[in-house]
Every structure is written in C-alpha cells, then in structure tokens.
C-alpha cells in the first residue's frame, strides 16, 4: 500500500469517526434546546453535568459547539481524503483544541461535579480517537 493510499484511508476513517461524534453532539444539543438537561425524566444521570453552569459557554450549549467542531473535522477530513493538503493542515489545530477542551471537561466532571455523563464520556472517547488518527497520519513530506 502506498503512503498516499494509506493517508486516504486514514482520513476517510477520521471522517467516519467524526460523524459518530456529530451524532452524539447533535443529540445533546437537542436535549439542551428542549430543556431536558434541566429536568428529570429525560437523562436521569446526566442532568448534573448537562444542567450545570459548565454546560454553557457564553449562553451557548457546549454540545452545540461540539457539534460544530465535529462537523468541521468531518468536512476537513473528507477534503483531506480527497487530497486537499490545506485541509490536512487545518485539521490539526481543530482536533488539538477539541482534545484540550475534552481534558478540561473530564476534569470538571471528575473533580468539580463528581458526576459523569455517558454521552460526554462517549464524546471524549471519540475525540481521543480522532487525535490518534490525526497523529498517525503521515505528513505530506513522506512519500
């Protein structure tokens, strides 16, 4: 297998993984907009996390920001799989920012809220996987 083909497969896989994260973030965004995160009966174990003050940034649900980030990763990974070099370059800072944000929210859940939301943990796993895939991708200089 050539490096180019390997790179194509890797970015295609990144796009597919990003879609899973997008689905998760979209679901949480809907929960935020329907008020389920502030109620019992919707997500009984997640309200402590999703209903906390940490669930919004500037009034915008974090889930919505996550959905935008995942979609951006999906779009860039798709273009990267088709050989757009600039898309590969943009992927790294976006996934890097998502990785750092994930670390922060894991810290908040573990040491501030003392509660975990399974959807947030799933998103964290997705972000870690994305970071791993991008790190594994060969650079443009490699032939």
């Amino acid at each position, binding site marked *: 297998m050539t490096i180019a083909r390997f790179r194509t497969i890797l970015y295609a896989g990144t796009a597919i993984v990003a879609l899973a994260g997008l689905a998760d973030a979209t679901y949480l965004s809907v929960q935020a907009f329907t008020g389920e995160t502030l109620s*019992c009966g919707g997500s*009984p174990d997640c309200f402590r996390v999703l209903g906390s003050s940490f669930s919004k940034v500037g009034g915008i649900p974090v889930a919505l920001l996550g959905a935008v980030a995942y979609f951006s990763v999906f779009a860039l990974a798709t273009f990267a799989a088709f050989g757009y070099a600039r898309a590969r370059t943009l992927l790294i800072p976006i996934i890097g920012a998502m990785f750092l944000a994930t670390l922060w929210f894991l810290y908040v859940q573990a040491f501030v809220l003392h509660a975990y939301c399974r959807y947030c943990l799933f998103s964290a796993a997705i972000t870690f996987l994305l970071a791993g895939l991008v790190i594994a991708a060969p650079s443009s200089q490699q032939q």
Partner: protein
Amino acid sequence: MIARIRVHLRDSRAVLLRLRVHSWLEPELDLTIYSLRRSFSLFCHSMKRYLPFVIVAAAALVALGSGAMLYRAKRPQLQAIPASNSVAGKSDSESMHIRGNPDAPVTLEEFADFQCPPCSSFAAFGEELLKEYDSRLRIVFRNFPLSAHEHAREAAIAAEAAGMQGHFWEMHDVLYREQEVWSKAPNARELFEWYAGTIGLNLDQFRKDMDSEKAKERVDSDHARGDSLGIKVTPTLFINDQPVEPQYKNPAGVRAAINAALEAKPKSGA
C-alpha cells in the same frame, strides 16, 4: 443486406465498434459504442473535484434534518390548564398544597418529584420567589413521581401522610434537604418515619396514613392531572395555568413569566 463489423482501435482511450448495415435502399448506420468502463472512469475523474463538496453538503443536510426531527419529537407537548381544571384563584387547601398567600393573583403550579435533583434546586428557588413576590405569588405543589426514581412515589406518599397532619411543607422541605441520603438508601421508609419524628408528627398516625389509600389516591390524582397536561419531566411549571416552556425554566425565565402574569392581571386587583 450486408452487415459489416469493423473494430477499430482508436488510441488507448476507446474501442470503437462500427456497424454498417446495407439494405436495398443502402442506408448506412454507424453506431459508435465506447467502452462503458472507460466512459465511467472519465466521468468519475471529472466529478472527483466536486465529490467532497457533495459529501459534506449531504452530511450537513442529514445532520440538520435529523436534529430538527429529533427536536420536534422531544419537544414537550405541554398544554395549558383548562379553565375547568384551573386552580388559579381557588384556595381549596384541603386538596391542594399551597405555599404563600392563598389569595395571591399569580399561581405557580409545580409538578415535581421528590427524588429529582432539579426539583430540589427549584424548591430552594421557590422560597426565594415567595420572599421576593410576597403576597402576589403562591406556589401549588403537585406530586409527579417518576418511575425511574426508586423511592419517589414512597416519598410523595410520605409527604401526603405528613400533610394529613398539617405538616406537608415541613416534610417537603426535609425530603428535599435530605434527598441525597434517602434516595440512595435501601431503607427509605425508615428514614421517612425518622423525618416524621423530627418534625413532630404522630408516628403511629403517620404510618397508618402512609399505608392508607387516601395518601396514594392524592399522589395518583396529581399524577393523572400531570399526565392529562402532557407532562413527562420534572419539574414542570405552570404560571396562571400557562406552561413555562423548557427554555425559560430558569430563574430569569420564571421571573419574567411571573411579572408578565402580574401585568396581565386587571388593575382592579382581582
């Protein structure tokens, strides 16, 4: 009629097939058939530049569409309390648990679950509202225990049993204050009896009332009322019979709704 088939190889890109048909009128019919596989390859090569845009656009449409559909499905379908079922303006304290001025112009009817942490947060907020709005607001409590909460129904029955001795709100406060303890305890009933003792209830009567059908019927009656209004989550709030939408179920939103209800009241003070 003579049929001649000539196969020409015209450069490396195509295979040309010519068919000549001669009839007594000698028309010539040339059919050129290119290799389907090669044609498709040429098509893909020219479309390749647009394919990622198509994929991304399709994914965006699917994400937005599914998000919209999910929102419509999950959006609470709350109904306003019909006038025939309204409690606004009524002070039948025998069947209702009212906190604040019984004749207040604004009624905040709350459907809550004692094992629900957001309900516990709202209970504390409710006390703030009563201090803030004083005689202009009253809060009516309705039991709506959720099946997902193991001890919620028993807690509601305990509160109703305490209410039969005139101490509903004391038990209400204790249950929310000690929620973390009894919600995880296997012996919740014993804790409820202990709480009853701390607020000065007759324990024998309390136990009897807890086991009575009357307390259970009160809980079931509140729950049926909530079901009829389309309630699925707690806390669910109604201000003067109008549901408070989920996105406004926060301190600012509730205050705005109360203020709007106060402004809507006739100046005559009715």
